[in-house]
């Protein structure tokens, strides 16, 4: 039940993340995969760059997952892998996978983890457009 949490500059192996959470005791696996979209707020995106404060990101991710285990005591396995560095369109930026004995909790726990990750985990995204770049969410 130790969660598999990592931040990597290599392409994410989605199948490995899913396999990491599958067990014979948990019949429900929900996963969220975030990929690089070709536009953001109507503006064409060429590629992305993620920067991470790894030690804090992993600490905060650990807190998020611990909160999920508290909220859903039936939660069994969790894997979260976040990519950093330069990503092309369509590349996988993040995978969250959770396994629970029952279905509804797998959706709820996975959604809680990705939603909370986006609020507290110290990773920053710079979008590159045809005519410039922008740190996402930096300004009001």
């Amino acid at each position, binding site marked *: 039940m130790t969660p598999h949490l990592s931040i990597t500059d290599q392409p994410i192996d989605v199948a490995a993340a899913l396999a990491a959470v599958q067990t014979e005791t948990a019949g429900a696996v929900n996963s969220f995969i975030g990929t690089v979209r070709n536009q953001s707020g109507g503006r064409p995106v060429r590629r992305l760059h993620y920067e991470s404060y790894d030690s804090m990101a992993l*600490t905060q991710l650990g807190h998020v997952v611990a909160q999920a285990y508290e909220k859903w005591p039936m939660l069994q396995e969790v894997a979260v892998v*976040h990519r950093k560095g330069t990503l092309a369109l369509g590349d996988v930026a993040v995978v969250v996978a959770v396994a629970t004995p029952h279905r509804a909790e797998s959706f709820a726990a996975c959604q809680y983890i990705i939603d909370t990750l*986006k609020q*507290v985990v110290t*990773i920053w995204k710079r979008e590159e457009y045809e005519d410039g770049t922008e*740190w996402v969410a*930096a300004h*009001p």
Partner: protein
Amino acid sequence: MSLKIALFGITREIVGTSVIELPAPAPATVGALLDELRKQYPALGELRSCAVAVNNEYASNDQALHTVDAIALIPPVAGG
């Protein structure tokens, strides 16, 4: 006493380096550090938010800072 502050993303670009070292403000608190940094780098004040992390945890304004702390500025995150 001096403090080292790690910088990421847009704060790294605003300050122009990934680590700065400053004399500790008086009092040596998170809030005083933020005030000092915003004075030196007014563009930090234009961010949607700018938190301070101490030893990998988000810190409140009244938290005391020490030379040995791992301190970082945390502009608005955008993972996922």
